[in-house]
């Protein structure tokens, strides 16, 4: 009897241990996806460009750039006053930071090692918005008001500007992203609701898909799946959804569930396996869309940035993200987390 009871107790103890371990094991994957840090920024942060956790750039439209140098462990940063209104930003090397000035109609190259700028100006650079590097020497931007795609190449003290006219009636190009699939970029025309590709070498623009057949909502930003399958994501801000289109054919291949009214899916980046992560436009939130299970996972940063709005987002390949959260009444933040 005693041995039997002892065995029972041991077995129960083992069972409890195993169940506890199992429960903990079950929650481990969730523990990996976490908010990590929120750091103060200058006012009105917009675009984000991340090279690594030790070099994350932030464009503040009050006229500064900020470089965060150790976001994995602290909020150390260096600020650079550049004037203008830095909007979206890209980083092609440690000495070549490029950003659009949305209101002051410039595309600027900034070298932090010397704190020097080279401004690109041209009549076609009207309302420049999103920007991406095709390679380290060549950047492409969307000029919303002029309806052009702008190619810029930095020289020693000036830059070469080439403007490509977006087809259609009164186009307003918005989001743009590089895609190796098409040796160029994908971008959207918000006014005519079109997805186009542009060849980097020739500037030839080709229609991929007319989005009016799929939705009444405006397309905003674009993110290529980065060799994780040939598809490109588009955010439809006011519908709170994402759609994926095949890069070879333009076929619609995926539609996310909606995050709901007012949950404005805005800027977008892609982590491993082409999984998209987005900022919300009217809330301090960052979400990941798992297209395998059709589910959203959300990091809510309202405690760290009360009442803030989301704006730019960028990521490094591991799934770590960096996002700008704007506050109209308090301190704006750059936040980092991992999905």
């Amino acid at each position, binding site marked *: 009897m005693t041995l039997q009871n002892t065995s029972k107790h041991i077995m129960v103890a083992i069972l409890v241990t195993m169940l506890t371990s199992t429960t903990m094991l079950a929650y481990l994957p969730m523990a990996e996806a976490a908010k990590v840090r929120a750091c103060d920024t200058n006012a009105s942060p917009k675009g984000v460009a991340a090279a690594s956790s030790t070099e994350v750039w932030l464009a503040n439209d009050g006229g500064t750039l900020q470089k965060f140098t150790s976001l994995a462990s602290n909020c150390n940063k260096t600020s650079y006053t550049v004037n203008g209104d830095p909007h979206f930003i890209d980083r092609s090397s440690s000495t070549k930071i490029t950003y659009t000035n949305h209101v002051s109609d410039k595309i600027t190259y900034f070298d932090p090692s010397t704190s020097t700028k080279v401004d690109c100006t041209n009549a076609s650079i009207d309302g420049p918005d999103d920007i991406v590097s095709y390679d380290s020497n060549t950047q492409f931007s969307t000029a919303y008001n002029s309806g052009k795609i702008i190619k810029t190449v930095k020289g020693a003290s000036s830059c070469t500007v080439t403007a490509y006219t977006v087809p259609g009636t009164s186009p307003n190009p918005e989001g743009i992203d590089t895609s190796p699939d098409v040796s160029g970029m994908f971008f959207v025309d918000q006014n*005519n609701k079109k997805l186009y590709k542009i060849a980097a070498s020739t500037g030839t623009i*080709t*229609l991929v*898909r007319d989005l009016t057949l799929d939705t*009444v909502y405006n397309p905003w930003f674009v993110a290529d799946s980065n060799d994780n399958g040939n598809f490109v994501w588009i955010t439809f801000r006011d519908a709170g959804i994402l759609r994926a289109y*095949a890069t070879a054919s333009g076929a619609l291949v*995926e539609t996310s569930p909606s995050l709901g009214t007012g949950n404005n899916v805005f800027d977008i980046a892609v982590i491993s396996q082409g999984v998209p992560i987005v900022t919300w436009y009217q809330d301090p939130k960052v979400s990941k869309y798992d297209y395998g299970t059709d589910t959203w996972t959300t990091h809510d940063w309202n405690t760290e940035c009360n009442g803030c709005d989301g704006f730019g987002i960028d990521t490094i390949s591991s799934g770590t993200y960096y996002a700008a959260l704007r506050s109209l009444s308090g301190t704006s933040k750059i936040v980092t987390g991992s999905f």
Partner: protein
Amino acid sequence: MKQGKKLAISTTVAIMIAVAGAYYAVNIPKENATAENITLGQIANTIKTTTNLKATVIQDKINSIDGVALTEEARSTNSGTLERTEETSKEIFERGQAELVLHRGIGPDGNEYVSATITNMGTSQFYLLSLGIAGYTKSGISTLTAYGVNADYSPDVWVSYPEPPITKPVILKPGESITSYINGKWYVNEVEEPITDFSAGALYGYEVQGITTDQPTPHWSIRVPDDSLP
């Protein structure tokens, strides 16, 4: 003692099963998710072509095509979304109101007839810039498009699309309608799914003359089925 051993063995087996089950429970969804993720990539890689058709245009509403009766499947009306200029919302509502209706029918040969009719429901003319139809599989994959009207068409840009019958803006006076339709049976071989669902979309504006790049004329889109939020 024997009973104790039996209990220990059976409990151990139960634990092993529980552990195996738990391991499976923890890992299977992840593996499935990965497989699903790869599937999307594979789908995108596999679907290298689309079926882009030229729709037929009729400058009116229609109830039948080739003697095949059409049934209304969905209807959308634009209203408040047009408040995008400096004019009053009432004027805009009256001037820019449009209705888009999707009809379907099945011919004696089993082929589908799908039509999209847009009607100017406002009080002044507008300019129809595009009227198209898209087809979807049950899983939401869309490889089929067809245009009756597209003012933005150019062969250099619309490389993989046939020239629509009408490639200039169509003026629709109040009460006037125009219809695009397609006829056939479509299947997406790459995913082994038939095209069973359809939508239609149109783009239009008031002004086509006098557009400048400094002051783009707003365009409005209407889609059926209506995908706007409540």
